[in-house]
């Protein structure tokens, strides 16, 4: 009887212990992400690094950022399993890559592509004080026309 009780208590203890540590790591991850997206104007959560993306969708976002010459912080989710899941929970978005501007989730690859094509990205960047390189690239041409 005693043995059963002990085993029961022990299993209870183990489960609650695991739950607490899981919740703790979740909270720590959330805090880490929160700090990262709030202290950087542009953050990209991606697979691989900008020099060597490990997913076509992540690569597309890197190429867009490069075109606009956006300075950004990137995070490789393949190197951190907590972040890989944590970022999906944080933004309630199921896929990678994910782009944050001024602490706000903007979208994944499809949305970035569309925003790039529609010119909306240039506007969003302007709001946070980043001048897209595409603007500077077209300006001299306009002057030439005059």
């Amino acid at each position, binding site marked *: 009887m005693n043995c059963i009780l002990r085993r029961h208590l022990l299993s209870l203890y183990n489960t609650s212990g695991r739950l607490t540590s899981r919740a703790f790591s979740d909270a720590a991850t959330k805090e880490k992400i929160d700090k990262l997206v709030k202290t950087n104007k542009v953050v990209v959560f991606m*697979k*691989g690094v900008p020099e060597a*993306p*490990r*997913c*076509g*969708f*992540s*690569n*597309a976002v890197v190429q867009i950022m490069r075109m606009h010459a956006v300075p950004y912080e990137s995070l490789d989710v*393949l190197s951190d399993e907590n972040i890989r899941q944590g970022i999906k929970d944080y933004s*309630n*978005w*199921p*896929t990678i890559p994910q782009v944050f501007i001024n602490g706000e*989730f*903007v*979208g*994944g*690859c*499809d*949305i970035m592509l*569309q*925003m790039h094509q529609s010119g909306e990205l240039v506007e969003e960047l302007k709001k946070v004080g980043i001048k897209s390189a595409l603007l500077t690239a077209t300006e001299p041409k306009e002057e030439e026309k005059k």
Partner: protein
Amino acid sequence: MIIPMLNNPIRSHLRYGGTVCLHCIRTMTSAPGPVECTIRNKLQSTLEARHVDVINESYMHNVPKGAETHFKVVVVSDKFDGLPLIKRHRLVNDLLKDELQSGVHALSIVAKTPQQWNESDKVIESSPNCRGGFGK
């Protein structure tokens, strides 16, 4: 007499024992898997879509033949009217939540209103090439 072209999709479809998707029977062009059919049905019924395209892009990635891991969906619905892109995408993501949690790994979304769809060239570009990050 056996017509191999027709035989294959039906058999592979029945093997999974899922609901039979009318689209799949109608077109008979490829062998859509059960996940592809579920995605199509969900989008069609819940969003009352005027046009749905579900493209299985798994073959572009390092997964077994016939896998259903990478999809691109094209949805044309009145329900997108007045919604910003991110909200349209969230609608689709939420709708396919179960699929995304149980094996669907990549989902590319094109979400347009009927007007936007009619004004567009209706050409859907295929997704960028895989760079090997899947499966790690």
